[in-house]
C-alpha cells in the first residue's frame, strides 16, 4: 500500500510535468522570431555577443581572418531563419563554415555562454532563450563534423 502511494506520487509529478509541457506547446504559437524582438532584437543580441567574443582571449583568435561585418550579417540572417523569421539563410553550411578550425567543446561552450549572457543583457526572458537554444543545439554536430 505504501509502495503504491509512492508510485502514485511519482506518477502525479510526471503527469503534472507533461501537462505543463502541453501548456507550453500551446503558448508557443507566437513565433520565436517575434519573441526575440524581430530583426532589431536579433541585431542587438548579435552585436552584444560580438563584444563578448572580442573580449574572450580563448576564442577571439578564431575570428582573426574573419570579415566581421559579413559574419554579423550572416549570423543575423541565420538566427532570423532558425527562429522562423522572414529570412532565408544564404551562408555556407555549418560544417564547411567551421572545418579544420580546431574547435572543441570548450570553444563551443564558451560561445553558448556568451550568447546566453548577451540575450540576458538584451532583456530576453528564460523561455525565449531556451527556445532559441533548442533550435541551435543540433548545430553542434554539424559544427564539429569536420574538425
Amino acid at each position, binding site marked *: 500500500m*505504501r509502495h503504491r502511494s*509512492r508510485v502514485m506520487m511519482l506518477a502525479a509529478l510526471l503527469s503534472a510535468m507533461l501537462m505543463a509541457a502541453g501548456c507550453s506547446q500551446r503558448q508557443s504559437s507566437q513565433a520565436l522570431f517575434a519573441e526575440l524582438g524581430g530583426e532589431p532584437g536579433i541585431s542587438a543580441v548579435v552585436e552584444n555577443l560580438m563584444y563578448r567574443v572580442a573580449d574572450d582571449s580563448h576564442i577571439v583568435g578564431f575570428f582573426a581572418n574573419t570579415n566581421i561585418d559579413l559574419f554579423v550579417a550572416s549570423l543575423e540572417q541565420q538566427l532570423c531563419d532558425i527562429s522562423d523569421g522572414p529570412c532565408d539563410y544564404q551562408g555556407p553550411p555549418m560544417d564547411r563554415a567551421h572545418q579544420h578550425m580546431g574547435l*572543441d*567543446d570548450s570553444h563551443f*561552450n564558451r560561445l*553558448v555562454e556568451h550568447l*546566453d549572457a548577451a540575450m540576458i543583457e538584451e532583456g530576453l526572458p528564460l523561455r525565449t532563450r531556451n527556445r532559441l537554444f533548442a533550435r541551435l543545439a543540433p548545430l553542434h554536430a554539424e559544427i564539429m563534423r569536420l574538425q
Partner: protein
Amino acid sequence: MRVIRSLRHILWRFVCAALLAALSLNVSAGSRLLATGGVTQIEGAAGGGLSPWAVLAGTASSGEVGLTAMGTRAWLNDYRLSVGGVGLNLHDHLELSLARQRLDLTTLGGELEQTIVGGKLRLFGDLLYHPWGIWSLGVQHKWLEDGALPRAVGATDTRGTDLYLSGSKLWFSAIAGRNLVTNLTLRHSAANQGGLLGYGGDAKDSASLLVEGSLGVFITPNWIIGAEYRQKPDNLSFAEEDDWQSLYSAYFFSKQVSLTAAWLELGSIAGLADQRGGYVSLQFAY
C-alpha cells in the same frame, strides 16, 4: 586498518584542499555550462542524490580538468548517513571519484563505514547538444570497514563492485519554457542497502540488474527541482529491502558552489520500516 585510516586522512586532505581552492576568489571553472555536471550522489559520482547521472563531475570540458568536493548528510528516522567525497574530471572523458560513507545506527546502536572508489567513462554524446544525450559507463568498487554486522545478518561479502550504464539528456524548453533533465541508469549490483549491509545474501547471492531514473526541471538556470527513483535488490532474508525515492531541489550559486536539499523515502532498512527524512549536500567545484 592502518590503510583505511591513512585513506581517510588522504580523503580529508583532498576535501580541505578542494574547499580552499574553491573558496579562493580567482578560481577558474570549466567551460561547460552551469549545472551541467549535476551534483554528487551518495556514492561519489556526479549525478543526483541517490543515482549517478551520465554527466561527469564539475564543468570541465575538452582540454580542461575539474575537481569537486562534497559533504552530505541525511537524517532518517532510525539512521543518519554522512558522506564526504571528491571527484576528478579529466577532459570531460573520465571521472574518478572517492567517497566515504558512515551510517550511524541511531536506534540500533553502532555505525557502519564504507569506502567507494569510482570511475565513469563518457562513451559518447552530450547532455545538451546530442539528440541522444550523453551516455557513460561507470564502476563503483566498495568495501566495508567492519563487516561483522552485515555478515551476522546474512551478507556473503563485505566488498563488491557495481557496474552501471547511464544516459542523461537535457530537453530545452520542454516544460513551460523551462529545460527538463531526464536520466536513466542501469546498474549491475549485489549490494545490500548500497553496500552498507554488505553484498549478496542468504536469499539471493548473485547480482541483480537494477533500474534507476530521475527527472528534474530547471526553474531557473541556477535552480533545479525533481524526483529520483532507485530500484534495489532484496538479497537478505532477515529484512525486506525497498526501492529508494527522493524529491530534490538543488541550487547552483555559481559553477563553484551548489547546495542540494531533498526529501528521502528509503522504505524499510534492516528491519526498521518507513525510513524517511531530510537530506542536505554541499558541493564545491573548480
